[in-house]
């Protein structure tokens, strides 16, 4: 009798031991999480059910994001619909202020932020090296090329493309043809009609100056300075002034500032000359994240087809390989994303801020 029971007991014990793996393959124990798990299986291949369970147990995730409020809010709303067990909280500020707050908190051991975003890839690289970012490779890692991520640390939400923008009421189609190349901005036709965004505004306002100086030399800036462009303090007021017709052309416009205005009917257009200039906006998990599992789940979601698409539709050009641009502007016949992008060393761009700003002041800021 005892011998007969042995195989049964062994089978039962075996089943018991295999239960977690069984549950893993079949999803979380809590039936209420089934819809979330179904989505994960579909769009986050390889992400385990235990991640979902642990994230739900933590219940909250805190995101430190930039001023791309609409894109972020849309993605958060979609995430909460997919994962109602995780409440998303958010803090938004300009780049410098956001960085200062997060760095100070991290240094003091204050564990508040789970997810951080930044429009300066150099900053994120530096933080990864300093050990303040969590090493977590997302399940969609292979969809991101090396230039748009630091594997396991941060992934690009978008490429914030820089272009030459004009007001279509003030610049004729023939004149606009001059603006299809970077060299076109030095044409005397733009004297007294154009504006530039001060590189000190940072991020996307800074990179074109760095690349112009490296690629075309100081003469390029000198010629631009001779046109006496109006200097605008930041991307947003520059875009607003263009839409209202107060300025006719912006030489270093950010597409992220132009798009909301274009979609609302402002008479503006822009070109994205070759080689393209487009710093990445990245997202990472803080090494000291108080809700690491919820953070991993959000990080996973942000780079799924659904999460990425929702953000990208409002936030900027896609950086994910083969991802179809969701923005209505991408369907416009005049809209062309550059075929190539100007290569640059992210660390060098961060280090040369002072030199580039000085050159800008010499040829443009102080040459007025």
């Amino acid at each position: 009798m005892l011998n007969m029971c042995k195989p049964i007991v062994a089978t039962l014990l075996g089943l018991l031991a295999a239960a977690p793996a069984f549950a893993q393959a079949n999803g979380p124990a809590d039936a209420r999480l089934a819809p979330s798990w179904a989505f994960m299986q579909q769009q986050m291949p390889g992400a385990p059910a235990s991640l979902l369970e642990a994230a739900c147990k933590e219940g909250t995730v805190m995101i430190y994001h930039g001023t791309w409020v609409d894109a972020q809010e849309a993605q958060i709303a979609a995430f909460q619909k997919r994962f109602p067990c995780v409440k998303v909280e958010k803090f938004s500020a300009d780049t410098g202020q956001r960085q200062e707050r997060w760095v100070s908190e991290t240094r003091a051991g204050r564990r508040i932020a789970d997810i951080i975003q930044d429009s300066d890839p150099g900053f994120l690289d530096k933080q990864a090296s300093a050990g303040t970012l969590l090493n977590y490779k997302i399940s969609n890692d292979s969809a991101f090329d090396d230039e748009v991520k630091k594997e396991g640390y941060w992934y690009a939400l978008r490429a914030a493309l820089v272009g030459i923008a004009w007001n279509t009421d003030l610049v004729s189609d023939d004149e606009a043809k001059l603006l299809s190349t970077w060299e076109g901005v030095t044409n005397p036709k733009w004297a007294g009609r154009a504006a530039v965004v001060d590189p000190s505004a940072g991020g996307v306002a800074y990179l074109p100056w760095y690349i112009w100086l490296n690629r075309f030399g100081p003469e390029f800036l000198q010629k631009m300075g001779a046109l006496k462009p109006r200097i605008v303090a930041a991307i947003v007021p520059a875009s607003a002034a263009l839409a209202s017709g107060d300025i006719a052309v912006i030489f270093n416009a950010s597409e992220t500032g132009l798009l909301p205005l274009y979609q609302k009917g402002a008479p503006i257009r822009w070109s994205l000359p070759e080689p393209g200039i487009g710093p990445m906006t990245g997202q990472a998990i803080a090494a000291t994240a108080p809700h690491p599992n919820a953070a991993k789940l959000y990080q996973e979601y942000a780079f799924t087809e659904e999460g990425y698409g929702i953000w990208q539709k409002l936030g900027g050009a896609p950086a994910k390989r083969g991802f179809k641009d969701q923005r209505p502007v991408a369907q416009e016949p005049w809209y062309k994303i550059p075929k190539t992008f100007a290569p640059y060393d992210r660390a060098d761009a961060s280090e040369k801020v002072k030199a580039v700003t000085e050159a800008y002041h010499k040829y443009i800021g102080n040459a007025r």
Partner: protein
Amino acid sequence: MLLLVVILAPVASVFYGSFRTGPPGSPDAGFTLQNWVTAYFSPSYVSALINTVWLGATVAALSLVVGGTIAWIIARTDTPGRMQLALLMIVPLMISNLITTLAWIALAAPNAGFINAYVRGWTGVRTIFNIYSFAGIVLVHVLHYASFAFLALFAALKSVDASLEEASYMVGYGPVQTSARMTLPLIAPTIATTFLVIFVFVAENFSVPTLLGTPVGFQTLPSLIYYNMAVTPSQPNLAAASGTVLVWVAIIGTILQRRFTRHSDRYVTVTGKGSRQREVRLGQWRYATFGLVALYLLLAVALPYLALVIGSLLNFLTPNLRWSAFTLDNYRVLFTEDNLTAVTNSLLLAGGGGLALTAIYVLMSFALGRVRGAWGRVTDYVTIIPTAVPALILGVGLIWTFVGLPVPIYGTMAILMIAYFLRNIGYGVRQADNAFNQVSGDLVEAARMTGASRLRAFLDVSVPIIKPAIFSLWTMLFIFIFMEVSATILLYTPATRTMPTVLWNYMGSGSQPRAFAIAVAQANIIFIVLYLAERWFKTLRTSLDK
């Protein structure tokens, strides 16, 4: 002593940080003098300092002239509708500098401003006024601070002992000579204090010179500080060093102000004797003075508010007002859960917090204001320093101070209250001081002789006399706190977000019309709260009709 620590610790953090190569606590940061060398000696910073002082002094002087003239018109003449005009004079303060600037860009941008476009259509003149100029910066500031100067000078004019002016009339001086020889010296301490406070407010403001000065290469120290914080990587240590420059400027200003008000006993005007001031009869000129005040209100209130309302109803800002450009969508966002939380927090902080700060400033002033000698001097200097440190840097100083402390302050409403306490201490304590200066020691002494304790004498004698000033102080603090953004943006959390942080984020994301909608709502909420306070407690009337 605790207050002194709260006041000085963030400022000390700023000073300490200004001598470091990285933020305090950073393992790879070391000692450096380079930030100070740059902030104090490099040509661009020296030039920015000169611009800052020049701008602050110009705005303070013009605000006093405009605000003082209007205060005299309303307080001392038979201009029609004076009380209504007086109440309207508070409205310019309900719209923040940042928003007023944006409204004026919409009105007077050289090529597309509403005014320039309108005039161009009529006369063919391309630009009658370019807001991107030194004159534009001064205009925006003066329209705002003339209202501030009005409140201070109006209260002072109402407090002046009428018998002194009456004596001047008796010896044959007319209204102009009496004002110049008698009234002006009597309100000199208020003029000096108001000049200093406006100067400091303007000197630490970054939004107006950044938006209006950059296109013409006009930079002030706060606009450079803003760049230091905005540039990637940000340079908070250099920004901190630049912030210390303004502290010295404020200290010099305080030395001058103290010299001016050294003999405050001369200015005791409420002595327990009843008095009623003589009203100057202007005859037909009273319509001209009415027109003058109305013109100010048109420029400071009606035009910018109209621009804000129109802007808030547009898809994007444009002078081409076609039907298709209009929308109500910008107001829809006001009713999200997040934004309603922001409204609640702002009301709590500005209403309750403003009340608490009023009490603290009055008690501080009572405890320290009459202290003579070294303590009196120290108090004057200590209270102006946090107000002089630009708010952006004060926010950084607060983070550096509190983020590592094992006390449950960081990330709560408490740290916002500390920020507001520090931001307004220079104004709050001085306003309370001015009020106490007007209370004769004889009255307090009389109460003490009848057996009243010091506290009882304070509550029964001093408080009723300075009640209008207390109401006036609460009103101003309510407005200041309700609109504060520069320090709040660094310190808020999702649970403590305020209306200005929501507005700021919409601005940053390129949704100017939405930010305008928030600004309109903000101004309306301030107006409603002040209206209710006036209706229930007669706050405005009491502070104006002293």
